[in-house]
């Protein structure tokens, strides 16, 4: 799921950098205003925990095993804003120290995993984390955080006209689904294990803000849809917008989802261009909203020392 450099086309990685950097900045600034620097070792240690946790194998059948990705777990343990910071730290470390994921593509990876992934998991938890649906909420949060990150990455690759056959696309979606199921199960099991040791270590879902959270939820799902729409509608449009694409203009490879175009998007390149821009604008708007809402962290009574 970590996108390396030179896969995404320049408009895509550049846009995502431009989107993710201020979004992260807003979230980080809101969060640091409400925490003293003593939080920083906790976030660092939790980041190291997630790294280390990825070494533990969870048998998921057919002789295969999965491991924790950690976005949802961090969101439930630290709250969304701190989870965003921690995951971004993890991604940056992976890029520079372990060459896992690109440097220019950090914006894309941060957007997909640290921001969208955490956002989605938080939505499920905030809405249904209390009461009877709690286990389902935790599971679904984990499931969708991986699913959304994966689909976003896929969309970004498709929009960049990275050659992918239909089989590869569907196969990737299948792979994401399996990983997402594992993540849901692992996140649930680990949260339960943590709560058995100390319930105070897991955040209580905020009962207020329901409307905003619901809006966030709607946006999140819309985002996934937009991702697909972009892939289907935008290729030619973005090509004409993007001056610096690294892609040959006459591609024999059509975006595989072009066949899924809705009748609305006819062959008029202008409309596609508008769709592309609108989609990106939506993403940016979402980030701004997310920044404001996620940045509001409650005083974590459970985490005082």
């Amino acid at each position, binding site marked *: 799921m970590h996108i390396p450099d030179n896969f995404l086309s320049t408009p895509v990685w550049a846009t995502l950098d431009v989107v993710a950097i201020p979004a992260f900045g807003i979230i980080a600034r809101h969060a640091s205003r409400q925490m003293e620097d003593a939080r*920083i070792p906790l976030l660092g240690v939790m980041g190291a925990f997630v*790294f280390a946790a990825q070494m*533990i194998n969870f048998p998921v*059948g057919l002789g295969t095993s999965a491991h924790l990705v950690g976005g949802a777990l961090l969101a439930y343990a630290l709250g969304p804003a701190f989870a965003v910071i921690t995951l971004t730290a993890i991604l940056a*470390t992976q890029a*520079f120290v372990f*060459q896992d994921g690109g440097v220019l593509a950090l914006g894309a990876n941060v957007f997909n995993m640290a921001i969208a992934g955490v956002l989605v998991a938080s939505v499920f938890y905030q809405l249904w984390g209390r009461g009877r649906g709690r286990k389902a909420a935790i599971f679904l949060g984990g499931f969708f955080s991986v699913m959304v990150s994966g689909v976003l990455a896929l969309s970004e690759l498709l929009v960049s006209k990275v*050659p992918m*056959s239909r089989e590869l696309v569907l196969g990737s979606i299948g792979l994401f689904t399996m990983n997402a199921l594992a993540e849901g199960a692992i996140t649930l099991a*680990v949260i339960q294990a943590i709560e058995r040791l100390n319930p105070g270590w897991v955040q209580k879902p905020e009962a207020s803000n329901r409307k905003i959270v619901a809006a966030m939820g709607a946006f999140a799902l819309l985002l996934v849809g937009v991702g697909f729409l972009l892939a289907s509608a935008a290729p030619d449009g973005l090509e004409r917008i993007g001056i610096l694409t690294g892609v040959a203009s006459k591609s024999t490879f059509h975006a595989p989802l072009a066949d899924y175009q809705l009748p609305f998007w006819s062959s008029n390149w202008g409309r596609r261009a508008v769709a592309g821009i609108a989609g990106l604008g939506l993403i940016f708007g979402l980030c701004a909203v997310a920044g404001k809402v996620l940045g509001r962290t409650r005083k974590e009574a459970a985490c005082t020392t």
Partner: protein
Amino acid sequence: MHHVILERWAQGNSPLHLRDPRAKILALLAYLIVLATTPPGATYRIVTYAIVALAGVVMSRLPILSLLTRAGVVLPFSFTFAVISWFGGEHLRAIALVEKTYLSAVAVLIVSGTTPLPALLRGFESLGVPRVLVSVIQFLYRYLFVISEQAQHMRLAAVCRGGARKTSRRDRFQSAAGALGVLFARSYARADGIHRAMLARGYNGHLPVADAGRFRIADGVFAALTILVLTALRTLPY
């Protein structure tokens, strides 16, 4: 282990090691951007970038073979897509993909291999990366191996006790979850201990500001020259 080797490499004192991290970061970004924005048909340009990268490797006095091999970790991924491109008829694109992804990895390795992580982080902070992020990465890296070792031990202990194949998948799943729960608890306790140790030495709410060091003329020359050369290679028509 990879990071250990990087740390060892970073202790050298080649001309590249001695450059300010900020200069190296800027040069790296220039290199990556130039690489990313070059169209696949421009084979000669990509060759010139490779020469620049090689020059960097030589100037860093890092073990060449080892570095070039480690940069190859990205190749399996790019080969897959390159093969698909090739059989889709886009030969140039396929070759360019492999070349560019590899050269990117080499460039990042040169910088990581000549700059100790704390110095690199100071450079980033000085260039505007939020303090919160830089500090979290610093602590993450500090405890990454301590906690990984703990995880390793837990894995070994479980393996030692899991000889019988009779353990059901569900049980092994649950015990892995339990292990992570314990690891989480120990990590949390560790964070508490760190906080206590910070307080005991007079910590008053603000981590000390890291000193980014002086940006010397040599650093400026290095950065400017690299960026100029790369821009020229990217834009000159040939």
